[in-house]
């Protein structure tokens, strides 16, 4: 008899699923909320919001253990899972089939966006003090370029979609939603949650604009 703890397949898949929500999804929610404070201006954003985070003890350890490693595992294993997809979108035009495809496509999109985004904020901030000290100004400079605004908007929408749709499939994976009705209802709840998150994120982006 094969035991689920002897065969890592199941536990790895569930770990991937769990990490997508906790801590990665939770961080996304926090991150969008944090940046929605941009509306209160540079002084508040730099002096209160960013300063509080930058002043946290053990920050690099927290960033690596709570954000980077779970995200890297989720992304890496997500890419492995994506290789199993053979979607036929025109033959089967059902909404869920498109969402299935989009979940994987958005995952790849997020990966590309995150490399750029983390590179031009957190990583660049390591050696450019001006970025670290005036993150508001840096973001304002970036987002004032229309193509960069478009890039961030795309990254935002892909991430929010991926989290909201991931939440709805998690309901099936973990066995919360079983009946078709329950899956549909929870799907709407997740869509509402996604729209709310997208609104918070967009609000934050607009808050940086001059």
């Amino acid at each position, binding site marked *: 008899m*094969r035991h689920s703890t002897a065969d890592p*397949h199941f536990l790895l898949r569930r770990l991937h699923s769990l990490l997508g929500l906790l801590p990665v999804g939770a961080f996304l929610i926090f991150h969008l909320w944090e940046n929605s404070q941009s509306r209160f201006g540079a002084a508040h954003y730099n002096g209160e919001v960013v300063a509080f985070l930058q002043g946290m003890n053990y920050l690099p350890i927290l960033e690596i253990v709570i954000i980077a490693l779970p995200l890297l595992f989720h992304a890496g294993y997500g890419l492995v*899972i994506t290789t199993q997809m*053979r979607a036929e979108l025109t033959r*089967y035009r059902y909404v869920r*089939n498109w969402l299935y495809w989009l979940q994987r496509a958005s995952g790849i999109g997020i990966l590309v966006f995150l490399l750029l985004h983390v590179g031009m904020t957190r990583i660049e901030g390591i050696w450019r003090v001006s970025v670290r000290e005036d993150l508001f100004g840096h973001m304002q400079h970036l987002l004032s370029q229309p193509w960069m605004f478009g890039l961030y908007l795309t990254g935002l929408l892909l991430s929010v979609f991926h989290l909201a749709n991931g939440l709805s499939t998690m309901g099936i994976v973990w066995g919360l*939603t*079983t*009946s*078709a009705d329950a899956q549909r209802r929870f799907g709407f709840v997740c869509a509402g949650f996604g729209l709310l998150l997208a609104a918070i994120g967009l609000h934050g982006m607009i808050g940086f604009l001059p």
Partner: protein
Amino acid sequence: MPANRTSIRFKIRRQDAPGSPPYWQEFAIPYAPDHNVISALMVVQNNPVTTDGQRVAPVVWDRNCMEEVCGSCAMLINGVPRPSCSALIDSLTQPIVLEPLPKFPVVRDLLVDRSRIDEGLRKVRAWIEIDGAWDTHEGAPRISPSEWSANYLYSRCMSCGCCLSACPQFGPHSDFIGPAALAQVRLMNAHPTGRYDQADRLHAIMGDGGVSDCGNAQNCVRVCPKSIPLTTAIGELGRQTTVQAVKDLFGG
């Protein structure tokens, strides 16, 4: 009702042997009402001449019950996987395009080797152990009418393979057993005697190719000709495997 009432036209993807290159041929037979794809193919078989007048080997296909219960006749009809005995000609646009059921190895023409379905059922122990080293009976098993009617839905599976063809996670590239076998785990685990082997079945679907390989595209439930609630089964197995994993990890 399609406009063309004088003939029934087919465009059929043919293949002479496993691994040989496929090719297309067209056939036409005089129109008659109430044909289904199989009965019309039988007429083609009587006189296998293509529309360009060439006499060819008769088209090979599979069928048995002719009433959508055996599952052997599934194929791709106008791009959709479905049983051909219940595909009524009068409801199809012409020329009717027939292709072998995708994802399964072609034996010849429209005949495919669907033994992978049986392998999946074997792998998940989709049966009830009625005899063992000891008597497992506790009198006649009783279940409530509502449980019975929920279980009944899954018992209608005829292993046609339509759900597997439509599943984007299933195919020669992956070892995913697919939704049909998963639904049978749901059914057998609910049986009063079958419950004894629930943990074994769950362990079988918690390995490679098991329930975690489902990506929730839900095509399966859309194409199943028996309207089997496959995605409900997958959700219920999600719940059962969650509980099983807690038991495996923490005991109980």
